[in-house]
């Protein structure tokens, strides 16, 4: 909501306050000023290091150099057909000013004007926006010769003064503008762009903001009762009540409907000052009638709608007009003001007569009965509508309007007649209309006055401050709440522009908020929590996951986080699932379902990065979503890993590195599992993970339980990605399964006696798994063998076809210093066992 300061000043005295002071007050009280646009008032000048408070834009008008002037004659330019020379008086001197403005061109050569034109006149050296540049570019007015005529000053357009972003022709001020007055004094302004919170629809108008400001400043809201200020009705006209009647079919949807009538209007442009304010408020001036409805709405908050009375009368066949508000019939059609034909549904509410629909209630008027250049008599509607219904209808028809913006936030029905009377007054003023006597007012559903009882204890308990009932009463009275002390409590009645105050404990909270705002959040002290500290239970699941992350990072994996939303096509490269959690309103086809595979997420990430580096190791931890028919899905948390590229980083003197392969992934996983303090781990070849290479894939078991699988990406799966030649290793785990395992926390003592190292190499059949050889060595060596490490795997003709040589580095250890013969004894025992059970042969 854009509010010009000048308009606010119609309702509150703002003397002694800068624009920024006002903006600050409003911002802290919930009316956040997003931007201040200066349109003539002096802009703040910040000294070096001084703090800004608001996003600020616009231009200040130099009081000396930009003034109100009058044009007395429009003369032709001697050397240019499209230019004119103005005889102008700036309050001090006569001037000759060159202009190409199209909107006074028709006066060229007409001689001395009967009524001088009032214009905004800028003198040499004035700073303005360049009227010919694209966008807003500042320039300083300099002396020049244009087509042989000296030019040193100009008459300004709205663009040049920053009132609008584009304009056509110069500004023609109202006739009563005082010649010679600095323009900044006459109409210098600043516009506050205020965000309207959903519960503060009441401030989406000038009076609403002025009222809040009055409460915040402790100043008086200038009473501007539209009733009192309304033009007296012309009594000899037939009262509107005899011409129009209203039927409300559903008061829940339409609590109030009012009509006033004004006759013999003269359709023309509104006064310039009105047009200027409308433009600053972000609305386009149309004609004095439409402007009057908009102006009254912006001022008071009550949207109005002007009907052409004669069109309605004709539709009623000259008889008494009967307006009905009702639900639309499914399929019923209406042509709205914007020219579109709209098909309605039963949830829409419309204003109609016997002939059919006239307006979409609270959202937009109909085309047929709209005000045109020919309109003579106007029926002005002010109504109250159900805010939820208006909100739904505006969305359904994609018709956000100033009216629906206000109605969908709630407009108090008490405003309906005030709005109409204000609108009638403006039409009378600007269009010379004659207000008919009487008033049509159907008000079947008056909102209940919100009454809340509040105590000093409530204030202390919620806000933490000690206020007396008198202080509370004073804070609320400033916001026009009626307060009455009843016993030891305050009975508070909300004013009739508010719909946001509830009942009971909710009402108490609503009123407490008003007390806090009125008192000022800044004035509420700070304190430390004194309430009992709950038992500190921690969150073991979360903590375990964080530990897992740390382990993975230490192993060289980069954590990634992917979108939960993906597409079936994308995931189908890795997994084939029958059903997904599907979004009803996806943002894009590639984000239409919730992921089921975390492996798919990490592979996508690898694909995305593969051209930008030589090696990648990624992990992701997060949920996948398993659908359950019409119920909340399961959200099991998973861990997925992917690796591909070089094993070591290359350098200028180390250009070659091997590619990561199966055993790099396996090594990382071994370290990960030992980091989780898991033991009793075994690995078995597996072809159960369909996206992995059937010969390069293993299941990991703890005891008999399968806890995850890993391996190299299946060549057919890899084909579906844009990846490099390098093998891609992937692994996936279910976190609940991992977490449920029993870790062991004991350690193996470190011996003080020196170990003995020995290498042995055995030749076995190709079919004997390495794991079996190692297991047998460990089993046979028992506690004497502290470590077994395979350091070579070797095949050649000398060993023989179908055979392989496994070379182990053994560490013997005992609680004494081992002698050579001790070592030999252990070795012999091991070798014998290998020979006997695996047909192994010792290589020498």
């Amino acid at each position: 909501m854009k509010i010009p300061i000048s308009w606010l000043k119609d309702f509150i005295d703002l003397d002694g306050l800068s624009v920024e002071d006002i903006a600050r007050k409003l911002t802290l009280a919930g009316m956040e000023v997003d931007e201040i646009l200066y349109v003539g008032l002096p802009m703040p000048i910040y000294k070096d290091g001084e703090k800004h408070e608001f996003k600020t834009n616009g231009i200040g008008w130099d009081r000396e150099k930009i003034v109100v002037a009058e044009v007395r004659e429009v003369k032709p330019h001697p050397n240019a057909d499209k230019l004119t020379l103005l005889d102008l008086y700036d309050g001090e001197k006569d001037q000759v000013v060159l202009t190409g403005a199209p909107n006074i061109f028709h006066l060229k050569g007409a001689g001395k004007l009967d009524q001088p034109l009032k214009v905004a006149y800028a003198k040499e050296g004035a700073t303005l926006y360049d009227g010919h540049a694209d966008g807003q570019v500042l320039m300083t007015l300099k002396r020049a010769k244009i087509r042989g005529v000296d030019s040193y000053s100009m008459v300004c357009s709205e663009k040049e003064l920053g009132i609008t972003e584009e304009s056509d022709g110069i500004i023609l001020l109202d006739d009563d503008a005082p010649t010679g007055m600095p323009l900044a004094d006459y109409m210098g302004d600043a516009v506050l762009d205020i965000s309207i919170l959903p519960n503060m629809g009441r401030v989406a108008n000038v009076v609403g903001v002025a009222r809040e400001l009055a409460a915040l400043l402790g100043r008086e809201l200038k009473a501007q009762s539209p009733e009192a200020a309304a033009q007296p009705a012309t009594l000899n006209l037939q009262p509107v009540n005899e011409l129009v009647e209203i039927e409300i079919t559903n008061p829940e949807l339409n609590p109030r409907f009012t009509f006033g009538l004004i006759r013999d209007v003269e359709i023309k442009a509104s006064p310039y000052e009105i047009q200027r304010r409308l433009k600053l408020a972000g609305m386009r001036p149309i004609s004095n009638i439409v402007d009057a409805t908009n102006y009254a709405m912006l001022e008071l908050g009550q949207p109005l709608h002007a009907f052409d009375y004669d069109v309605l009368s004709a539709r009623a066949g000259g008889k008494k007009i009967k307006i009905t508000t009702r639900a639309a019939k499914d399929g019923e059609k209406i042509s709205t003001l914007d020219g579109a034909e709209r098909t309605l549904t039963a949830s829409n509410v419309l204003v109609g007569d016997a002939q059919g629909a006239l307006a979409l209630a609270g959202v937009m008027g109909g085309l047929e009965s709209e005000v045109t250049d020919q309109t003579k008599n106007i029926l002005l509607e002010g109504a109250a509508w159900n805010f939820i219904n208006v909100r739904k209808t505006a969305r359904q028809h994609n018709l956000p309007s100033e009216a629906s913006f206000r109605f969908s936030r709630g407009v108090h029905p008490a405003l309906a007649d005030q709005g109409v009377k204000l609108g009638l007054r403006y039409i009378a003023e600007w269009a010379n209309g004659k207000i008919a006597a009487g008033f049509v007012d159907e008000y079947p559903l008056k909102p209940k006055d919100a009454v809340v009882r509040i105590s000093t204890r409530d204030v202390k308990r919620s806000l933490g401050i000690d206020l007396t009932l008198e202080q509370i009463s004073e804070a609320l009275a400033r916001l026009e709440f009626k307060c009455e002390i009843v016993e030891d409590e305050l009975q508070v009645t909300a004013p009739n522009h508010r719909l946001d105050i509830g009942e009971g404990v909710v009402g108490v909270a609503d009123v407490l908020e008003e007390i806090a705002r009125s008192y000022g959040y800044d004035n509420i002290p700070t304190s430390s929590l004194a309430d009992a500290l709950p038992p500190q239970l921690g969150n073991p699941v979360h903590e375990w996951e964080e530990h897992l992350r740390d382990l993975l990072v230490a192993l060289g994996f980069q954590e990634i986080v992917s979108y939960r939303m993906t597409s079936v096509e994308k995931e189908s490269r890795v997994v084939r699932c029958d059903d997904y959690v599907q979004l009803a309103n996806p943002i894009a086809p590639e984000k239409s379902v919730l992921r089921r595979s975390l492996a798919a997420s990490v592979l996508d990430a690898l694909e995305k990065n593969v051209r930008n580096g030589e090696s990648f190791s990624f992990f992701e931890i997060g949920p996948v979503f398993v659908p359950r028919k019409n119920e909340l899905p399961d959200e099991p948390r998973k861990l997925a890993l992917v690796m591909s590229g070089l094993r070591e980083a290359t350098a200028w003197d180390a250009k070659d590195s091997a590619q990561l392969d199966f055993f790099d992934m396996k090594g990382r996983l071994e370290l990960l599992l030992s980091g989780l303090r898991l033991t009793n781990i075994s690995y078995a070849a597996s072809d159960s993970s369909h996206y992995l290479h059937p010969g390069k894939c293993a299941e990991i078991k703890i005891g008999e339980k399968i806890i995850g699988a890993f391996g190299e990406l299946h060549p057919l799966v890899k084909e579906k990605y844009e990846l490099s030649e390098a093998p891609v290793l992937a692994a996936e785990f279910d976190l609940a399964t991992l977490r449920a395992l029993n870790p062991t926390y004991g350690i193996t003592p470190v011996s003080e006696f020196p170990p003995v190292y020995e290498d042995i190499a055995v030749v076995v059949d190709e079919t004997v798994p390495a794991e079996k050889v190692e297991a047998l060595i460990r089993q046979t060596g028992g506690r004497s063998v502290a470590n077994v490490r395979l350091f070579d795997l070797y095949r050649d003709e000398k060993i023989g076809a179908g055979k392989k040589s496994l070379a182990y580095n053994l560490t013997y250890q005992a609680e004494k210093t081992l002698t050579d013969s001790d070592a030999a004894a252990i070795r012999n025992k091991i070798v014998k066992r290998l020979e006997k059970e695996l047909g192994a042969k010792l290589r020498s």
Partner: protein
Amino acid sequence: MLDKLNQIEKEALESLQSVADAAALEAWRVANLGRSSPLMSVFSGLGKLSKEEKPVVGQAANQVKVKLEAEFESQAQAVKSAALAKSLAEEKLDVTLPGRAKFVGRLHPSTQQLRRVLSILAEMGFQVYTSREVETDEYNFQLLNFPPDHPARDMQDTFFIKTDVETDNPLLMRTHTSPGQIHAMRQFVATNPSDPPPIRIALPGMCFRYEQITARSEVQFNQVEGLAVGKNITFADLKGTIADFVRRMFGEGARLRFRASYFPFTEPSAEVDVECFVCGGKGCAVCKNSGWLEILGCGMVHPNVLTAGGYDPKIYSGFAWGMGPERQLMLRNKINDIRYFWGNDARFLEQF
């Protein structure tokens, strides 16, 4: 004989002068002190000398030996120092050549920021509470005081889940972590329905909003909320707690201000701005020249929410506040495009 010894000594010392490296040194040692050196042959010839000559020559030979050995040692030292000096002079690295890289792992920046936030909260007694990402309308909205079709819902555009049946309680992607407030309160109430315990929890997690993906808006983002519920909790406590948090998070001198605001699930509600830490409040592009950065929303828990959680609003009160780790990172690290976070581009992630 003594002359011969003098001659041996003289020649040996002369030749030692020109010894310049380890090999020549060894050759000199063999030639002058080795078994077949002239000096040694003097020693081995001692037996053939007369009784009178023997001690004289022996002693003199010994003196020569000691002298040669000493000279040898000192020359050896000199050679070694010269060699070291030479190698130090020659072995000069171009220290500007690049160092050898190593592939390392890192946490995602959001995880890092979540940890910063959660560790401060943990010290303040707020313990982590997590809940599901797909929710019902009831938990995400209705129990949090968003009635159906209420304008407040416009603040949180929502992804809905497709179901076969039309219902007034549709499934949706949570738009905030606040459903966790209800889950937590109900869980705590269940532990002692007659006198529910106080609550102090931190609710982190991924949230979702129906928005076009642009540099400024994303469909998913993390949120962390703090929730305190008890019999003795005030707006002044809320201000104090947030001031403590902001001081820890943004530094000792961080000025902050509370602005009245609106959230359906809190009342009174406030937004908290911290003085722009990029420009120190002077105005810059990050704070859009306002000098302030909006960093969190907060308020006293709405009575309807307490009631929905099973806490009687006549006895209990509480406060909640919420903030976005990604937004904090964007401000802190001058990240101008929110899409980096889930873009998984290693070139971005490696910078954290």
